[in-house]
């Protein structure tokens, strides 16, 4: 957004992970987060919060992230790799 600081981005990533918009870090896969992935996560957060979907950590988005809230995540993640298909 308006040039957020690295600390804001770091906090934003933490927040997005805590509330289910980004997958939790998986120490067993060493996957890196792409900028596009972050934008999509921010957009999803903005959609749920009723904010314009800019995909950027703008002031309104950071303000919303700082609002008091329920501890439960907004999006339920299934554990990675769990398949709905079972071996016969």
């Amino acid at each position, binding site marked *: 957004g308006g040039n957020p600081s690295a600390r804001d981005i770091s906090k934003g990533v933490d927040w997005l992970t805590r509330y289910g918009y980004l997958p939790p870090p998986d120490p067993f896969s060493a996957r890196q987060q792409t900028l596009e992935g972050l934008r999509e996560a921010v957009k999803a957060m903005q959609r749920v919060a009723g904010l314009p979907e800019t995909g950027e950590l703008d002031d309104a988005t950071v303000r919303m992230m700082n609002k008091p809230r*329920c501890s*439960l995540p907004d999006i339920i*993640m299934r554990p990675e790799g769990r398949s709905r298909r079972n071996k016969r």
Partner: protein
Amino acid sequence: YALSGSVWDKKLLTWRLENSPNTMSQDVSRTLIGTALAVWSKETQLQFRETREQPDIRVEFVTGSHGDGYPFDGQGGTLGHAFFPGVGERAGETHMDADESWSYNTEEGTDLFAVAVHEFGHSLGLYHSSSENSIMKPYYQGTVGDPSRYRLPPDDVDGIQTLYGQPDSGHRPPVTPTRRALPPRGPSPGPRLPFPDRCSTNFDAIANIRGEAFFFKNRYFWRVQSSRQLVSLNPAHLNRFWLGLPPDLPKLDAVYERTNDSKIVFISGTSYWVFKDTLVEPGYPRPLADFGLNTDGVDAAFVWKHNGKTYFFRKNLFWRFDEKRGQMDSGYPKDSSLWQGVPPNIDDIISWENGDTYFFKGTQYWKFQGGNVEADPGYPRSTALNWMYCPLEGPAVPTDAPEGRDQRGCSCTCTD
């Protein structure tokens, strides 16, 4: 609205309030909790009855970490949470942050009734809603006014009636809960190069950078998020991330984030480099003598949260540096034994976000709670176990690993 996917298989549910917040009497709390539940029964066939026995819905005011993986964070931040019906032993449990300034029907403080209505939505099987007027929006929206006059918004009525039917009509057939899509998986990691074993090594330097802990060893580093999650078991290569360090630099001695401009200082031998984010600033390396340090290097450097000053350690001495003045404070060096309970020649030190300070040496670390200069009892503990996600070998040892992480190295994930 969104459904959690679980539902109570009975219409009469019992509840019990375990305690009350400091700002409110037990009677007022009980009335608000009872009224918040009645809001949901008004629109459904559900009925609620208070009990002294083991209840279906147990409401409790708790503080900080309380053993369920959703620690509270003092005033503001997270306010409450509740467990969905039928999911484990905690089903129906509802926790409120005891550190909030709870109130009702006023703009002052946090409206207990409004938060309770929201959390009971979870206890009954609803998930967060993105609807503009829903009480199930995840964010606190201020007081909802007089509890006795409150009615659920239409989105929440639709949601709860899908689960438990309308009050005086037949039960609507339950719909299959929709699940929100997962983001696609990333590509599988490529071939790996040999790197140090994080479970048996000591670390050259450890730093708190932007709220995350970076553990440096030789030309690699590991990264631990502020939630104490290790980002990867495999380290990253120093020169692929921090651009501008000499490619043949064998190791770092100390790293810290400056308080005055958030730039990051890397120290190796008698030289140092200053980085803006991940890129080195022009004009570096510079000699350590710039700091007024006439030593052959430093063992550790960190910024103490309690005064914003930078501390340098070398062998059994330490210095205090004022970044704003760009000068060493007078009266230093002092003997490092002033930090009681840790040996000399420390590997490195970090201040954590909550103000605690950690000293690392060898494969162990010591914790200094708050602004204490005396190590906490029960330390040293294992860095491998509590920071590096390493499996526990031998008998159980004390840990301050975050909740939800098994000491044997497993990672627990809350799922639907």
